[in-house]
């Protein structure tokens, strides 16, 4: 395989922890009263290559750094050290409908969200019909998004993300949306995306999703990759390693 789609080298990310939530001039001016700033090491040196067409699931307990890793890939954070590079267009699904504005209609939001994801107006207009079709919201597409239910919002968000002709799909625990029929449709769409050579990087706590979609699985613990391999064996090791916590996490 030629150059990897995702290349991560010695990736580290630290966050500053402050005990008072309020950011104000007072805390900046009263420097002698400033609390000790704690550093939270979320990722402690990740090395990873992902080839075109791979579908990688990330497992791990809460706070292991899964979402941070995805956010770094989506270019929302800058690494503290090291680098991560994604070649091609990324469609980040860190949260469905993150860019929706409640007062605009579904159609207006499709246009806006598509542009946020890096499409041109023309590309979106060519895809609008398929997005509306996929979301099954034809009757409500001209109503403001604030009148939508959360399920409808999720459907619209997913429909946009899978129709932006991305090379890499980055998904954070949002596969479990919608009703049964819509989930089946999403799975079929993801399958088609993979067959067309797309790469998927996702976080999930649902064993079924991982077995259905993933070709490779990572186990992340305390900001480090502890296991990387075939989904079934990684899942079994993970389950054995945290038997008691799994129930609570699901």
């Amino acid at each position, binding site marked *: 395989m030629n150059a990897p789609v995702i290349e991560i080298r010695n990736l580290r990310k630290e966050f500053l922890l402050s005990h008072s939530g309020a950011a104000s001039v007072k805390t900046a001016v009263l420097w002698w009263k400033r609390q000790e700033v704690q550093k939270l090491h979320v990722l402690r040196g990740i090395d990873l290559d992902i080839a075109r067409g791979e579908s990688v699931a990330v497992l791990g307990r809460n706070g292991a750094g899964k979402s941070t890793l995805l956010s770094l890939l989506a270019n929302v954070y800058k690494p503290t050290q090291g680098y991560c590079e994604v070649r091609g267009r990324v469609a980040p699904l860190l949260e469905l409908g*993150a*860019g929706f504005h409640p007062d605009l209609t579904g159609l207006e939001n499709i246009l806006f969200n598509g542009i946020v994801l890096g499409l041109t107006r023309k590309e979106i207009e060519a895809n609008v019909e398929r997005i509306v079709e996929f979301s099954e919201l034809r009757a409500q597409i001209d109503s403001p998004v604030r009148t939508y239910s959360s399920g409808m919002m999720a459907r619209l968000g997913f429909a946009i993300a899978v129709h932006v002709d991305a090379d890499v799909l980055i998904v954070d625990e949002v596969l479990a949306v919608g009703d049964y029929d819509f989930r089946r449709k999403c799975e079929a769409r993801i399958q088609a995306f993979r067959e067309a050579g797309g790469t998927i990087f996702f976080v999930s706590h649902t064993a079924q999703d991982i077995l259905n979609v993933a070709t490779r699985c990572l186990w992340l613990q305390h900001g480090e990759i502890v296991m990387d391999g075939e989904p079934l064996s990684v899942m079994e090791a993970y389950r054995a390693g945290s038997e008691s916590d799994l129930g609570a996490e699901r």
Partner: protein
Amino acid sequence: MLAELKELWRFRELLWSMVERELRIRYKNSFLGFFWSLLNPLITVLVITVVFKVYLRNGTPNFGAYVLAAYLPYMFLNASILDAAQTISGSTHLIKKVYFPREILPLTAIIANFIHFLLALGVFFLYLLAVYLLNPQESPFQITTLYLPLLLVVNLMLTAGLGLLFSALNTFYEDVKYILSVLLWLMIFLCPVMYFSENVYYPSENALHYTLYHMNPVAMLCMAYRKILLAPQDVVLGETTYPALPMDWALFGYTALFGLFILWMGYSVFNRLKWRFVERP
């Protein structure tokens, strides 16, 4: 900075559609819609004119137009900065989930306000036309109006620089917007909006005081808009009438350089801080 500008250019389509969205949302749920932005300055000028003409017996002809010519750019600056300052902290849900150049958020607020300002200037010229039609003695339109684009560019540079600067600072210290709203409210009294810049000069004829006063780029801009859009106006102070002063292009040149500096500084500060917006403690 060049790399950042390139990146911004790559996302220009996002900027335009954000501006479009901003304009659309602002009036989507109101009955009078777009007319609010035009009605607001007209009502303000009506009140100011009544106060000055009737209560304070100011005899300046066409006083409303002089107020409007300085009030509109002042309000553009005021609204842009206050709007821009809150854009980043108001969009954390968005910037935590998707990447795009963060400067697009404050720039959207500034450009949307700039479009309102241009429309309000259109209303200003209609106002002049109406005054002329009611009292057709001499045309209120000036040939120096041709300098308007130059003033707009300087005004935009200054506003964009301040907007970027304060939007970045307000993300970390929310006090910034409260301090700003007080300062911007006080500044209207230190700008020639409700009086003439000649009032600053006469009768002491203190050139230093006059220059220092106009070192404030906002005061200079208010003065410049008046000088190029409207006829020179003699000022009455007590019993004496003093002649109008000419437009001071040297001071304006200084203001243009100052605006450019503010823009550069504001953008630099913004770029230094922008990756910390999503992870502020």
